[in-house]
């Protein structure tokens, strides 16, 4: 594999650069901290003619998703980015985009939702979008942001997929970090990403109607079709990830593991916290705790098979959630993991640590503490790590 030049760049800018390499036709991005640098840098790229993109300076996130839907429906490659309140404002439109099978790509700079207002980092904005029918992939570091963004349209626009994709980028923790990263060159991206050739578009030469309403005689079938589309998309996601590995040497998997062989206690993480957890696993092992790490990369469609395989043999799972699901005594990743493992003959004890909310810094030491605690667990637990009282 040819050695490429690594450059230090703010991850948000790198995300915009990656979008700029994808020959996006229409971008409608409404600024919101901590995504704004993506919106701004993409603006710069358009202004300098580095990408031939219609940049629509919409007046709200609801309109940015509306513009993307309209543009995508004409056969244009559409992009947007948001997080937190912006994502919540778009919420109404997300199931529409997926039901209409429009391959929009959206970067989400994961940030807490009000109230109270908090501009930092957690996953509470993406969790309410769980049932939206979008493919959701989490990134762990800047290089992954570039890679996953470049792969997003390839996955979304595949004729066996035709679904919109969210790339999760932890707000501030990733977006505002300067990291050394490498970019493929434009020729390589062009070879990897074919032009968008949709099955049906809005054009007078072939008039059709999108967004018809449905009565009970068709509605349930449409919902099943939506579910099946998302479930079946995994095949394409794996295929695209395989191809990326062949071309660029970096491997992505729906569930990734770190030093899990023979491990008794497995930390289960998602997003940027995974890198920190890796260091904690090393430390735990040095301390004699039989620990390992399972990283969920593909959030939707949920990788049940891969998760089952990854946690086989473990006694305890310590699921880290960066969001709360009030009233459930279990946060979203925890409940999904539990549900996926329910039918297994042997099931681990699962403890849930809700941590890192509102941008709280979760250190290697914190993970070590949680790992040590989990190693002693005798039954299911649900705890807000670090919250006194």
């Amino acid at each position, binding site marked *: 594999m040819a050695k490429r030049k690594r450059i230090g760049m703010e991850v948000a800018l790198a995300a915009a650069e990656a979008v700029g390499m994808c020959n996006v036709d229409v971008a409608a991005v409404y600024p919101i901290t901590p995504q704004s640098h993506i919106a701004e840098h993409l603006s710069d790229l358009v202004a300098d003619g580095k990408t031939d993109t219609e940049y629509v300076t919409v007046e709200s996130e609801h309109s940015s998703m509306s513009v993307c839907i309209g543009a995508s429906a004409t056969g244009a490659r559409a992009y947007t980015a948001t997080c937190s309140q912006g994502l919540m404002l778009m919420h109404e439109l997300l199931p529409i985009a997926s039901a209409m099978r*429009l391959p929009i790509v959206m970067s989400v700079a994961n940030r807490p939702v009000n109230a109270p207002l908090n501009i930092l980092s957690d996953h509470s904005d993406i969790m309410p979008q769980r049932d939206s029918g979008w493919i959701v992939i989490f990134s762990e570091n800047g290089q992954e942001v570039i890679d996953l963004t470049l792969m997003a349209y390839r996955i979304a626009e595949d004729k066996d997929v*035709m679904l919109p994709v969210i790339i999760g980028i932890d707000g501030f923790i990733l977006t505002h970090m300067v990291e050394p990263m490498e970019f493929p060159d434009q020729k390589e991206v062009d070879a990897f990403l074919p032009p968008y050739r949709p099955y049906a578009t809005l054009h007078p030469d072939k008039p059709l109607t999108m967004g018809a309403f449905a009565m009970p005689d068709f509605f349930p079938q449409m919902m099943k079709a939506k579910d099946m589309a998302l479930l079946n998309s995994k095949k394409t996601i794996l295929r695209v990830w395989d191809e990326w590995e062949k071309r660029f040497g970096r491997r992505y998997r729906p569930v990734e593991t770190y030093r899990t062989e023979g491990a008794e206690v497995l930390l289960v993480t998602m997003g940027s916290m995974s890198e920190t957890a890796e260091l904690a696993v090393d430390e735990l092992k040095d301390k004699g705790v039989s620990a390992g790490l399972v990283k969920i990369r593909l959030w939707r469609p949920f990788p049940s098979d891969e998760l089952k395989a990854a946690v086989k043999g473990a006694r305890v799972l310590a699921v880290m959630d960066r969001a709360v699901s009030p009233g459930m005594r279990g946060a979203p990743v925890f409940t999904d993991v539990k549900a996926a493992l329910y039918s297994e003959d042997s099931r681990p004890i699962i403890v849930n640590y809700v941590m890192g909310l509102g941008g709280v810094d979760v250190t290697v030491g914190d993970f070590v503490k949680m790992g040590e605690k989990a190693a002693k667990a005798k039954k299911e637990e649900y705890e807000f790590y670090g919250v006194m009282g």
Partner: protein
Amino acid sequence: MAAVTWQEISQGNIVLTPGSTKGYHTGGWRSLRPVWDNSKCIKCGICYVYCPEGCVSQDEDGYFMADLDYCKGCGICAHECWPGAIEMVEEG
């Protein structure tokens, strides 16, 4: 409507046939229907213009009639007809 399998639903629930509502005959709605008296008709076409269904058409001689498959019997054409050539007649 016949039951369909989920696989038969078009991708994205797209309706591919423009104007396909023509398969639904709204003519079954009406209780009155328009009848033209061609001796009074001046062929102005205002009945054609004002029909919300767009179901009034002109024959080779220039006279007008409603397509009874779609006419809902609203009575606009009869009301607007300048020389009063259209009468709304009860169905049945």
